[in-house]
């Protein structure tokens, strides 16, 4: 784990986070932390509340209980753009890019959101890393799903948020680019950024994460280093159980 700090507060601390949708307790008293310079994997079967946790951290949804601390500061009352401006970046499970604008314009808007003026060189090298330099002036909607996902990730990497939330960054992405994304996540970690990673690809998560948080039915059922999580009976039951239930099969890939 990272050299960060017993004294300074963690980059992200989630405490007793709770969210209801009508009768459904989508997130139920979840608590965990992400230190600067570490990667935390967030796993669990489909519908266990992972994406909702992202929406609560970024205030896209308002929590019914609990709090979120960023560098020790509660951020529950901040508007969406202020959360981003604090240096919290995210991607969405359903890819979100500006579909009618081209790749370069998308990157430009990511820079604009954080008030970056000197972003062009970095954007150019990110496009090269992700192998879509030739798509610079292609409209978002003309990209493949995988390319759209990469663009979304690139937009976040461009602004280098201190805390990065990635929601299934590999979904629909060509296997060739998988290693590139892994390298980039490692690189970000080395640079002291905190990363919270939702991903169904277990090997990817286990390889990259310093710690793994497991959710099931809105509750945290385990939290520890990958080796421990791999051996945890309850986790295996939750993950395998879900993938063996016929209705959830399409979610496990």
């Amino acid at each position: 784990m990272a050299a960060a700090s017993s004294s300074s507060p963690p980059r992200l601390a989630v405490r007793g986070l709770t969210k209801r949708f009508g009768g459904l307790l989508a997130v139920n008293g979840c608590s965990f932390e992400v230190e600067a310079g570490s990667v935390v994997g967030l796993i669990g079967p489909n519908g266990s509340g992972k994406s909702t946790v992202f929406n609560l951290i970024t205030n896209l949804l308002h929590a019914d209980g609990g709090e979120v601390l960023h560098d020790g500061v509660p951020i529950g009352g901040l508007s969406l753009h202020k959360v981003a401006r604090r240096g919290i970046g995210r991607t969405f499970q359903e890819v979100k890019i500006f579909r009618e604008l081209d790749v370069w314009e998308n990157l430009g808007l990511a820079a604009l959101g954080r008030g970056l003026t000197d972003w062009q060189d970095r954007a150019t090298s990110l496009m090269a890393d992700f192998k879509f330099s030739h798509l610079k002036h292609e409209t978002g909607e003309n990209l493949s799903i995988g390319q759209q996902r990469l663009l979304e990730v690139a937009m976040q990497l461009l602004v280098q948020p201190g805390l990065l939330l990635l929601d299934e960054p590999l979904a629909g992405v060509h296997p060739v680019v998988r290693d590139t994304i892994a390298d980039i996540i490692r690189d970000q970690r080395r640079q002291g950024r905190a990363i919270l990673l939702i991903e169904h690809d277990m090997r990817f998560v286990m390889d990259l994460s310093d710690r793994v948080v497991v959710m099931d039915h809105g509750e945290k059922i385990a939290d520890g280093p990958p080796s421990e999580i791999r051996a945890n009976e309850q986790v295996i039951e939750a993950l395998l159980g879900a993938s063996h239930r016929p209705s959830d099969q399409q979610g496990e890939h």
Partner: protein
Amino acid sequence: MTKTMRVALIGVPAVAGLALPLVWSHPFVLHIAIQALIWALFAASWDLLSGYTGQISFGHAGFFSIGAYTAAILTKTLALSSWIGMPAAFVLCGAVGLGVGFPALRLRGHYLALVTLGFGEIVLLVATNWESLTGGAFGMHDFGTFTGLSGDPLHQRQISYAIVAGITLTGLAVLLWITRRTEAGPAFRAIREDQVLAAALGINTTYYKLLAFTLSAAFAGLSGALYAYYIQLVSPSIGASSQSALVIGMAVFGGIGTIWGPFLGAILLFGITEALRFVGVVYNLIAVGAVMVVFVIFVPRGLAGLRLRRRGRVQRADRRAAESAASSG
């Protein structure tokens, strides 16, 4: 569609129409050019909010109307010069736009449409019923021209043409500058494309939406003031929803989201309407309506969209649409 053809199709007739009074200073030519310019600024103001920022306003004539009444009241009732009336209309309408923007912040689509439509109707009702201020249904007239002087009508028109051209072209330049040269331009487009993503990237969507409402209303109000000083008659009907519909039609005709498209589109469409008067005042409107329908169907992105076609974007979109039609059918 080449760049040359585009210029030929939009630029040449519109600019030629604008410049016509310079070579042929006929009162009727001046009359049409002046009104076309006023509509052009009005259409460009609508485009800033609705085409560029995606906050569709169905009540923009409300701002135009408030601007016109502000000019009329300041000049007739308070005997102030048009050089105070015009900036006053600009500032007041900006403030009203900001006020309309607040409730509109959380609304999208149909709900936003209803708020803006309702705003237009409220302005119409107030203009009709607040007789002591607005003159009621008959409105206000003869409150003083741009210069406040009267004299040879042709000379008056020439002066009006110079003033209106100067102000509307400056307005166009300012709107183009805001959208092309400041951070507001990309922020507006980001809001139009995806508000949640814009905010998640750190763009202050609240601020930029209010800015778009304020600026758009201010320029609509300014065009209303120009109308008042030129036409010398302000009545509730200038704020009618048909006026709002017409300005939308002009913007769509010219190509929304480009500022210059609606500006030139309005000039062209207004010119066509007036030029067709000889076929009769109802038939010319039907003809213009037909032109607009043809455009909405065959050139959905308006005249300015012909530029996109050249870049190949629309062709790809067309091909995809054709493919999906083929695969589903």
